[in-house]
């Protein structure tokens, strides 16, 4: 059961006497071991955290068959809705039902307020940064951030220099990944400012949980999240180009073969907007239209789930068939809003991430409310040296990748894998960063044999930025379902949990 030398564990022999109500059925927690990581349910001394008492009570009171039956009925609900995700990196690229766990992840009201303030601060600073970097570049001129980090970033788009973006809003939808350290402190692992996904899983998890464990909801007083589609719609409306009081908003999808297609259709339907593909769009005289049976209809705001590279064959990759020719010209002319703007990838680049605290201080004159994780910039020779000497203890990531690909987890790697990464780092140091292996927090998960065991989790709240900042309480909690695994990404076999922010 032990996965790596850094992980220790001790047996919870005192559990039944230290829990506040002694009637817990030990079969549930038989395999529940604590180690150095922060445990969401149990404190260091083995006592149960107060806000988890009712939850554990309910789980213990339900017979195993009942729990299994509920799990199965929730499985069927997911199946009926076709909530699947494509898993790459194996022989097939197959569709699987998105794995999820029945036990919700709880966040107290005080914890959430702190997170919300931190995220609001962060997105505000990043939006100002993006405007600066694509206009005067004051932060670069004053040497706060080395120019090379920005200009060597593959997601920095020269085409965006000097372009006026409606209301100066670059990032409309952000997904920021948070981890919880040993101390219980929430820190930012990374920002996702280009095309963040997963919100549909958050919404469907909630809907299915309500049907599966309704009593718990009543006992707890969970803050609602169903308003996300309305909030997103109103945010998109608020960033329409000037002079368009009744804007037509569409969702641009790459199409049915995209791994997140389910989410695109779900959101479009919930918001009541048209779901379009590149081939439905026609640009004429720098105005964007969609081709309907009632003629050409003008489009004002595009919630685009297509990458920058593919969005316009005339301005970016010429071999792309997912975008629309001339779209960038319409954008430049100010006739259409793209959410998110093009070129936001420079701000979620993993190398730039290390400078975000400096960005917050520079533009807002404030100390960051949410801290970063310690990060080594490998283009710096001294830091690179240190990292190469300690590869077996660190996590190395390629700056441009997402989805957990292109990553080395030191303590779980083989010598051959480390050698390969050393080669890659020396060949292209700008492309890599390193961070310490974090023992981030674990949360109880229910398994098929009826036992409850802890697994590593993260948290991805979704931040909406338009005329105001809106953050729906909670977000997507992702779970590394494989024992000992630290990889939570859905594309590599992770799963999710419902996230409850308590009243």
């Amino acid at each position, binding site marked *: 059961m032990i996965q790596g030398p850094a992980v220790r564990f001790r047996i919870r022999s005192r559990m039944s006497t230290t829990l506040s109500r002694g009637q817990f059925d030990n079969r549930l927690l038989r395999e529940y071991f604590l180690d150095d990581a922060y445990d969401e349910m149990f404190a260091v001394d083995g006592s149960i955290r107060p806000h988890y008492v009712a939850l554990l009570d309910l789980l213990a009171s339900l017979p195993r068959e009942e729990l299994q039956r509920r799990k199965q009925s929730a499985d069927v609900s997911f199946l009926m809705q076709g909530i699947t995700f494509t898993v790459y990196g194996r022989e097939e690229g197959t569709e699987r039902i998105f794995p999820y766990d029945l036990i919700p992840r709880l966040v107290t009201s005080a914890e959430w307020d702190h997170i919300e303030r931190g995220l609001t601060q962060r997105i505000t600073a990043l939006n100002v940064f993006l405007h600066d970097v694509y206009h005067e570049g004051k932060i670069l001129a004053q040497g706060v951030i080395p120019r090379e980090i920005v200009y060597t970033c593959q997601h920095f788009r020269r085409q965006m220099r000097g372009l006026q973006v409606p209301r100066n809003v670059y990032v409309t939808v952000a997904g920021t990944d948070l981890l919880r350290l040993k101390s219980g402190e929430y820190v930012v692992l990374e920002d996702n400012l280009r095309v963040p996904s997963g919100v549909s899983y958050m919404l469907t998890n909630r809907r299915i949980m309500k049907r599966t464990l309704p009593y718990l909801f009543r006992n707890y007083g969970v803050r609602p999240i169903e308003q996300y589609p309305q909030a997103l719609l109103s945010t998109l409306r608020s960033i329409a180009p000037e002079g368009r009081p009744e804007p037509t908003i569409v969702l641009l999808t790459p199409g049915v073969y995209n791994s997140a297609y389910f989410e695109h*259709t779900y959101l479009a339907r919930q918001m009541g907007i048209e779901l379009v*593909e590149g*081939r*439905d769009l026609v640009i004429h005289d720098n105005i964007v239209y969609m081709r*309907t*049976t*009632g*003629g050409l209809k003008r489009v004002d705001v595009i919630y685009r789930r297509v990458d920058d590279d593919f969005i316009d064959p005339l301005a970016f990759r010429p071999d792309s068939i997912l975008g629309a020719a001339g779209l960038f010209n319409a954008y430049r002319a100010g006739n259409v809003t793209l959410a998110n703007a093009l070129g936001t990838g420079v701000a979620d680049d993993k190398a730039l991430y290390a400078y975000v605290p400096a960005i917050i201080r520079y533009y807002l004159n404030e100390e960051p409310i949410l801290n970063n994780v310690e990060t080594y910039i490998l283009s710096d020779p001294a830091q690179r040296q240190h990292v190469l000497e300690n590869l077996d203890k660190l996590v190395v990531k390629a700056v441009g990748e997402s989805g957990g690909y292109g990553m080395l987890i030191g303590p779980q790697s083989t010598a051959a894998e480390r050698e390969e990464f050393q080669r890659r780092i020396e060949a292209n140091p700008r492309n890599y960063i390193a961070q310490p292996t974090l023992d981030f927090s674990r949360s109880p998960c229910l398994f098929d044999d009826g036992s409850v065991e802890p697994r590593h989790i993260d948290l991805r709240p979704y931040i909406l930025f338009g005329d105001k900042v809106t953050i729906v309480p909670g977000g997507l909690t992702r779970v590394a379902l494989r024992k000992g695994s630290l990889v939570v990404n859905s594309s590599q076999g992770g799963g999710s949990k419902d996230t409850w922010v308590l009243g």
Partner: protein
Amino acid sequence: MLSRVADSLYWTARYLERAEHAARLVDINVGLMLDLSRVSAERRWKRVLAALGHPRDIEWNNDVYSLVHTLVFDTNHPASVTACVIAARENARQIREEISTEQWQRLNHLFHDISRLRPLSPSDRQLSEFLPVLIDGVHLFQGVTDTTLSHGEGWQFLQVGRFLERATASATLLAVYHEDVFANMEETVDAYTYLEWIGLLRVCTAFEAYCKVYTADLTYERILEFLLLDAEFPHSIRFSIDRLHESLEAIEEESHGQNASELMRVSGKLKSSLGYAQVSEIRAQDPARYLRGILDQCRLIHDLIYEVYIQYSVQTALAM
């Protein structure tokens, strides 16, 4: 609605109707081979291929079972029954959120049923299981469509596809039968002939309905009248064109802004001509030519639908 979505709905319906018709055509003709007949296998199956519009790359090569296998199961041939169902499902998948969950589930069900029943080699027994399952599946889809999808623009495009395909298939079938069966008729009509005529009616699910109108007394003129001009029977050409025109009118109203006048004129003219035609007049001229005229109009209607709603040029659209 988006032109692309209208296009996919149209083709979903057309492919399913095509699959149903082809399935029945093959099923009936395989059945007719069980009795002693004056029609040779070669003649019969060449007739079937002609009724299916002479699919490319499929030819009579003296092997009934292999031909039937190709026509029903071979996914490499776009004209096969299985390939049509797959195409319908692919079209529906592209517009998943425009159709109801029940519709999608029904179509998926059908797809999995026929995948399960597909034999590895041609065999009579499996055919008799497969074809009814397919026909039932298509009917179920149509039923679910009618009850779970709002009868708005999307539903109307489904009807347009279904009835245009039905009219085309029926007209082709009748034209082929006219040339092969009726044009060279002998004076006395005997049991063998009756079998063929009943076969024709059965392909259009028309035998019982015909009998209700005319009794079991079969004559060529009445068969022609029933399948071409009957106002109430769902598989008659007139009925199909009536429904087609109705749906086109509904679409014109819903989509306001497009210039559909030429399309409505052609469709309306075809509807009226069938409404006022008399079978004696048709017989006096040349039924084959009349039927081919209908096919030409159907093709024209298809082209006009594309021109007005789906592939109009940007210049034309902006000039509105």
